[in-house]
């Protein structure tokens, strides 16, 4: 659960992006946030996972104020899929991309390797296992970035424009994944220009950002 309590945010004194937002995002619900370019959608997503911090208001993740946690600690609860997946890819191969944080932290186990193999299958990347990620198509890179988030067993994921600039097949795959994630009890927050994001029967909520305020549609 992510709680925003009276949160305001400004990049500079004259440009208030978010104004006194109070809202609770729960697991098991799919939230779709729309709004014009520059209306503060991405800023709000980044605030929710600690990538951006503000002193005006409180952001709580699983009941704890995020200012008391590092981004790494917050990411155990909240995942963030960037609009540009390349920002999230570092390793020389697709498989290493999934396991390298565990290698670095010294926590790479047989179970972790199994999970990586399974996610490669889920996201149809098993034949790309030894490929350099940045040489893959945008849709494949997007799926890989999503797989890296799923490696952490996260309960809530923020998707920043997850289906922009990708083909229909990949779009459908990501859409299907999000719906099944929510059906299985996960929470999803999608920042999207796609006003008609198909909620397909899952517990969903359409939101709109305007003038720095958050509205339910």
């Amino acid at each position, binding site marked *: 659960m992510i709680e925003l309590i009276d949160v305001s945010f400004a990049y500079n004194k004259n440009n208030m992006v978010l104004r006194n937002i109070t809202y609770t995002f729960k697991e098991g619900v799919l939230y779709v946030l729309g709004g014009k370019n520059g209306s503060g959608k991405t800023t709000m997503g980044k605030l929710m996972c600690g990538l951006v911090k503000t002193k005006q208001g409180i952001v709580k993740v699983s009941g704890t104020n995020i200012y008391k946690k590092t*981004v*790494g600690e917050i*990411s*155990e609860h909240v995942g963030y899929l960037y609009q540009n997946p*390349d*920002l999230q890819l*570092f390793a020389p191969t697709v498989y290493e991309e999934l396991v390298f944080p565990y290698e670095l932290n010294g926590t790479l186990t047989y179970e972790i390797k199994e999970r990586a193999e399974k996610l490669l299958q889920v996201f149809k990347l098993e034949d790309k296992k030894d490929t350099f990620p*940045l040489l893959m198509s945008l849709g494949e890179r997007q799926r890989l970035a999503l797989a890296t988030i799923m490696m*952490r067993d996260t309960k809530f994921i923020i998707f920043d424009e997850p289906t922009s600039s990708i083909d229909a097949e990949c779009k459908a795959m990501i859409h299907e994944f999000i719906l099944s994630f929510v059906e299985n009890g996960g929470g999803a927050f999608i920042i999207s220009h796609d006003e008609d994001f198909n909620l397909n029967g899952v517990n969903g909520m359409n939101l709109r950002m305007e003038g720095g305020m958050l509205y339910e549609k």
Partner: protein
Amino acid sequence: MKSRLDPRITMLFIVLTSTLSVLASNVYWLLLVFLLTLLLNIVFRLNPLKTLYRMRRLVSMIIFIAFFQSLTTSGGRPIITLLGANIVTSKGLVDSLSFVLRMGNIMLAVMLGTKHDSRDMIDGLAKLKIPYELAFMTGIALKFIPLFGQEFADRIKAVSLRGINIKKLKLSKKIKIYSHILVPAISGSIIKSRDIASSMETRGFRAYPDRTNLRVLKLKLADYIAMIIASSIFLLIIYFMFARR
């Protein structure tokens, strides 16, 4: 606010002050050159404190090197001794102060260039007979530095999102993670540069050997006066620095 001087004159200021800071052999000359560049910054309406803040990482590195240099340089009068060993000597102190002044001067000199936009600087370089393509590439490269910095910072955040606390990693693992970040950051920049090059080709860049400009740079009376004053001061300092030894 943009400088009203011709960008070539600003480039002259940068070259002269940087040259003096390299040639100055003692701390007094370095201090004089530093004060002159500081004065130029004030005349150009630049805030030196803001410069210090913007370059805070570089400044802290310079101070660290200077501190280290003061400890490792021997000679001169001992200032701090510990168990009979000279920790800091007068020569070490003067050398490290000279280093700080020299680097500070170069930083302040470079800041003068920020009072012109990259378009002006490219035109200025082209007027100095630097091949236009080379001048253009320099301009683009300078534009890429902050972009590259931002991309690097974003990737550090993305690594943190994967549950890696870089601060807590051992040095060998830190090096590994930075190499992981550096490779895509550089390849990303190369891809961006390639896209810019293709985009420029499609817009006719390099299609004709001679270029025309909407705004043609022309030296004005104020530019000539500034050039004469700057060159005279430069020659005077060089004369007193070397000829009267």
